[in-house]
């Protein structure tokens, strides 16, 4: 038997359901600018019907659940794009500093080399001239200083990358700890069968932030927890359990290595900020240092050999002459240790312009000056100047490439984020439409309750006479 009170119950349920839907809409509007927020939706379902002789009679509506609108595939692609963009952004920022170091005007190496060899050409015009010998000494000190400064700046940038890598590892550990906590909270919250949308949003944000820090793989298990591992397969988060990334200071330069458990992952990180930092610290800068050192070592060795073939202006003159530059102990570190022999710096008569000891003999000065345009490097294909220009080209290309890749990656990421917003984001137009929809439904339900109330009142008045 169906009563008016059952009809009132339908009205009440409808009012409650529309009000709940309005609340969800309100919450969406409130979070329109909340980063990482996924639009929520009230799922309206009819309540169980009552079987009657004439068939099932509906009993109204209820909000079965509030779900957040999310596309796991898009989230995954965004996390992959974020890893790439973050790595390229980081590399571009650091390579910009490296590029400045190698800029022609800032580095001074190209100009220094030019001045140094030209100073010997000038000395050849008057080999015994004291002012011209001081000119050679000054140019030699300038070129040595330029190499040392560039080498020092590279080491500084490398150290900055190392410090930033250490901070990034701390941040990674904070994020994995947070994801582990959220996994636990979500498991508890969803035990009742309802989605913990806010917690999931928070976890999604943490995962994206983690992807910006390191290249990761992740997947959602059936229990709703997310398992995160490095791209190399080392687990970082499994449900509520977290494996910290450890750092250890390593020889020879005291830079940190990253470990998960006992396994070192330093060389396998290929994305995120940490990937960019390690790429700059461990591959790009060492490559530049190696080439700069090789160039410095060659200049030192060739100039010293040519200088030793000469005779100085001391009384009595000595041959072979002293080294002009302090010989490099090894190729590695040659640029950082580039310096003029203190003996020569203290007395320019040690500069060997000739080979016979005669004051007018300029043969050795000419021989040293000629080193400038002898192709002795890169298998006899490059001069010193060309070798440095090739290094400048390499540095410029790396920075250009990282900046270009960063731009392309950012454009792709923006596109993906726009796609996600299109699906999961809050549109005020859409919410306003829902607002109208639920408002009208609420108004209709209220009107329905009013009608039932009138019917009830009429019945009571009729029967009460």
């Amino acid at each position: 038997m169906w009563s008016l009170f059952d009809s009132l119950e339908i009205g009440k349920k409808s009012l409650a359901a529309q009000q709940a839907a309005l609340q969800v809409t309100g919450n969406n509007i409130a979070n329109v600018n909340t980063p990482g927020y996924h639009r929520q939706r009230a799922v309206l379902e009819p309540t169980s019907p009552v079987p009657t002789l004439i068939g099932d009679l509906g009993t109204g509506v209820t909000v079965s659940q509030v779900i957040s609108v999310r596309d796991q595939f898009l989230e995954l692609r965004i996390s992959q794009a974020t890893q790439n963009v973050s790595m390229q952004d980081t590399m571009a920022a650091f390579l910009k500093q490296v590029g400045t170091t190698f800029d022609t005007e800032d580095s001074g190496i190209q100009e220094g080399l030019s001045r140094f060899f030209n100073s010997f050409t000038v000395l050849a015009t008057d080999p015994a001239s004291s002012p011209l010998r001081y000119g050679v000494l000054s140019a030699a000190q300038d070129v040595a200083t330029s190499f040392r400064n560039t080498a020092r700046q590279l080491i500084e940038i490398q150290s900055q990358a190392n410090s930033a890598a250490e901070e990034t590892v701390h941040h990674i550990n904070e994020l994995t700890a947070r994801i582990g906590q959220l996994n636990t909270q979500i498991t508890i919250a969803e035990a009742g069968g309802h989605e913990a949308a806010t917690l999931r949003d928070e976890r999604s944000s943490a995962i994206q932030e983690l992807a910006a820090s390191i290249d990761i793989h992740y997947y959602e298990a059936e229990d709703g927890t997310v398992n995160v591992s490095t791209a190399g397969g080392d687990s970082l988060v499994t449900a509520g359990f977290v494996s910290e990334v450890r750092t250890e200071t390593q020889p020879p330069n005291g830079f940190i290595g990253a470990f998960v458990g006992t396994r070192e992952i330093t060389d396998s990180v290929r994305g995120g900020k940490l990937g960019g930092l390690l790429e700059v610290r461990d591959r790009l800068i060492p490559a530049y240092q190696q080439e700069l050192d090789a160039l410095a070592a060659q200049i030192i060795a060739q100039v010293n050999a040519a200088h030793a073939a000469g005779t100085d202006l001391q009384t009595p003159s000595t041959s072979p002459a002293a080294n002009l530059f302090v010989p490099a102990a090894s190729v590695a570190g040659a640029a950082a240790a580039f310096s003029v022999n203190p003996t020569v710096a203290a007395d320019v008569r040690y500069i060997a312009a000739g080979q016979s000891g005669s004051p007018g003999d300029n043969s050795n000065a000419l021989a040293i000056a000629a080193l400038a345009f002898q192709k002795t490097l890169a298998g006899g294909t490059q001069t010193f100047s060309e070798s440095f220009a090739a290094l400048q080209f390499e540095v410029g290309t790396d920075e250009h490439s990282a900046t270009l890749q960063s731009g392309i990656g950012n454009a792709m990421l923006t596109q993906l984020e726009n796609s996600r917003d299109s699906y999961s984001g809050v549109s005020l137009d859409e919410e306003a439409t829902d607002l109208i929809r639920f408002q009208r439904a609420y108004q209709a339900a209220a009107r329905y309750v009013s009608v039932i109330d009138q019917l009830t009142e009429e019945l009571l008045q009729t029967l009460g006479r």
Partner: protein
Amino acid sequence: MKITPSTQTRTFLENIYRLRTRENQAHAELATGKSVNRLSDNPFAAAQASRLTAVMAENDQFLAISQQLRGKLETTDSVLQALILRVDEAKTLAAQALSGTTTPESRAALATAIEGVRQEVLSASNTQFDGNFLFAGTETSTTPFVESGGAVTYQGNDDPIYQRLDRSVVIQSNVTGQSLFIDSPSVFEVLEDLKTAVVNNDAAAIRSGFADLETVSSRMNSTAAVVGNNIRLTEQLENALRTHTQTLQEHVSNMTDANLAKSISDLNITTQAISAALGAQAQVQQFSLLDFLR
């Protein structure tokens, strides 16, 4: 496609960042006059410019050295021309001594004149340029010719001094006193012997001296020709260096100089685009369906 406020903001910001980057690039180009201000702007052009700038500096240095060397060669040439005149003068004096009409007095006068020539040659042989003796070989700080008891001894050496004029050209920049004055027949000995022969009225010795002076004169003329050639070579190389530097400068300019008209145009376009984007964003953000709900 659903456009959310976040989408609008993100797209707007990305566009603005891109426009600001272009605006910044145009600003930098106008401020410096260069389109390549960093290695990454155009790595190939930047590296080429770096290498070519070093070559231009090298050329400038060669040019300066060539000009200085030309001064030395011109001084050497003028000394050689003066020496040739002096030797010719000595030849004239020898011819007079052979005329057959000389008296002891006139022969004494001729001998004095020959001694005068010898002294002038000795003085010229010790000429300095920029504080260095021209004819001393590489012993440039030692007076090369010293007279003692009527004999002139050479204190220098026979070593050449070379100078590089560009990457491929090296020339000898000195004339050694040994080859010019000392090697047989030595001008000093010839003049000394001629003087004695004139005083003694020794016709055979005077003829022999005359012939030796011909040899000395010929040697000096040959040397002057070599020096003259080297002077012309320096002039030619200076012109070549200037042309080369100018070509390189143009090449570097083509690669790295900003096209100012384009930079100004870019700046105007980006400034207008930024203004339009800001205005549009302000308009777009004003309205949503909520504004029309009562």
